[in-house]
């Protein structure tokens, strides 16, 4: 199919004096995994929030399956959002609900599954992220890494077409990180899920990515398949990657 799943076109966003995004262009094809790399505070999270319509662009456009989402009203936006699952950087679990209620929330909102089916689905989704028997706990009782995995399970509960991961593995141990990477790959292979992943872990980025985009100074400094990006002559990209791969 020619049309990309997500198109970001000349996206600008400022917060007061802080001009964060200065004309970002990005295309994400259906069934691919795009990893966004970039320094802390470079606007990766801000970019991701535009993709799902949590922030409105000052200028430019975000097109999801042909629909420019900044032109949609709240209700149409909800319809588009139903295609997405999003993992927040800080998990953003509902702290007044138990883990089970958190993961079950999208199921209870958007499906007609019975209570028993919801419970079963919740158990499965938690097991996928390596958590067992934590349904009755509250988010405050979990470790940071566990919270992150619950956030992951919640984002995947409805088997969305597009999953946005804001640093899904930051703060996880290497084994769990590897596990989450496999999860992203499996979701693509088995369900054809389109993923956008923000990561600080260059190793896992090159492991899961079909394409990599490096965000710097409010612009995409390099974009393409991992091998191509690795060869990029852009000074920031070279410096950024050399810290991982060593100076060639």
């Amino acid at each position: 199919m020619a049309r990309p799943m997500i198109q970001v076109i000349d996206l600008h966003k400022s917060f007061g004096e802080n001009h964060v995004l200065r004309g970002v262009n990005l295309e994400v094809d259906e069934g691919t995994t795009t990893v966004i790399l970039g320094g802390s505070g470079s606007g990766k999270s801000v970019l991701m929030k535009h993709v799902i319509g949590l922030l409105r662009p000052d200028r430019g456009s975000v097109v999801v399956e042909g629909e420019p989402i900044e032109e949609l009203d709240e209700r149409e936006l909800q319809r588009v959002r139903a295609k997405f699952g999003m993992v927040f950087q800080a998990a953003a679990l509902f702290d007044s609900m138990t883990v089970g209620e958190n993961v079950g929330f999208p199921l209870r909102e958007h499906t007609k599954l019975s209570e028993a089916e919801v419970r079963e689905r919740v158990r499965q989704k938690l097991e996928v992220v390596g958590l067992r028997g934590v349904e009755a706990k509250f988010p405050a009782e979990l470790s940071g890494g566990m919270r992150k995995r619950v956030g992951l399970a919640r984002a995947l509960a409805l088997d969305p077409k597009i999953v946005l991961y804001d640093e899904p593995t930051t703060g996880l141990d290497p084994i769990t990180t590897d596990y989450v990477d496999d999860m992203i790959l499996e979701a693509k292979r088995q369900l054809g899920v389109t993923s956008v992943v923000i990561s600080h872990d260059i190793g896992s980025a090159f492991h899961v990515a079909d394409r990599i985009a490096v965000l710097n100074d409010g612009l995409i400094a390099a974009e393409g398949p991992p091998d191509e990006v690795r060869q990029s002559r852009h000074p920031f990209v070279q410096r950024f990657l050399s810290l991982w791969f060593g100076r060639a």
Partner: protein
Amino acid sequence: MSTGGREEAPSAGQAATQEAVEAVESVGRSAIQLVEDVGGIALMGLQTAVWLFRPPYRLKNLVAQLDYIGVGSIFVVGITGLFTGMVFAVQTYHAFSLFDAQGLVGATVALSLSRELAPVFAGLMVTARVGSAIATELGSMRVSEQIDALATMAVDPLQYLVVPRVVACVAMMPVLTMLFDTVGIMGAYLVAVFGMGVDAATFLGRIRTWVDPEDILGGLIKAAVFGLLISLIACYKGYNAKGGAKGVGTATNEAVVMGSVTVLVVDYFLSLLLASFWSTHAARGPG
């Protein structure tokens, strides 16, 4: 500076001018902020009204809020009502005994309570207890991105969080006000009849003569309006909280201050409005 020309060391006069300019600027900023807030709260009120009639209806959330706002406030509103009625009875008894009109204590207390004190005091207590809690809860949900998370799950946060709180507050404020009325008059009865020796039949008889249904109804209308404003202000402040824990603190603080002031200011205008309404629409009894 307008003097152009030479640079001068700032004189005392200039310093005073500077201070005055800053004071005016700060008043100006507050005024702009107020206009912005009023606009934002009105808009949130409109959106709430629209979402109120759109499915899915969040009955579970509504019941939880009715319980929290209504049932949870019974104790504090009851205590406030009891002591307001009691202290008011003591004061009016002493004042009225100067011209030997102690029998009017009950009617005076009942009139003041039902028209003014019950809705206003219940409003202030609900602002302190419920308004602060709403602003804090929504504020921390905002800064920890839980509100964003709701939105990404294709659930409208306004409908999920704001509508049940506003509806529950509008529904419960009149109930709490009735409670305040009842308990307050009971308190006055205790003090006047058992403490001061006012005749029970006179106490109740005067209430019946002097207090009209309009007085009570007017108080309940006020209460519902206060409930609407208190909850909208608290939701607005929490929903738009910025920053971390400090931002949540600011939101709560502003919600309580703005809510309390609003209750007192709006009470005055509602009193005028209701008085003119009753005087054109009903033939009043004595009072």
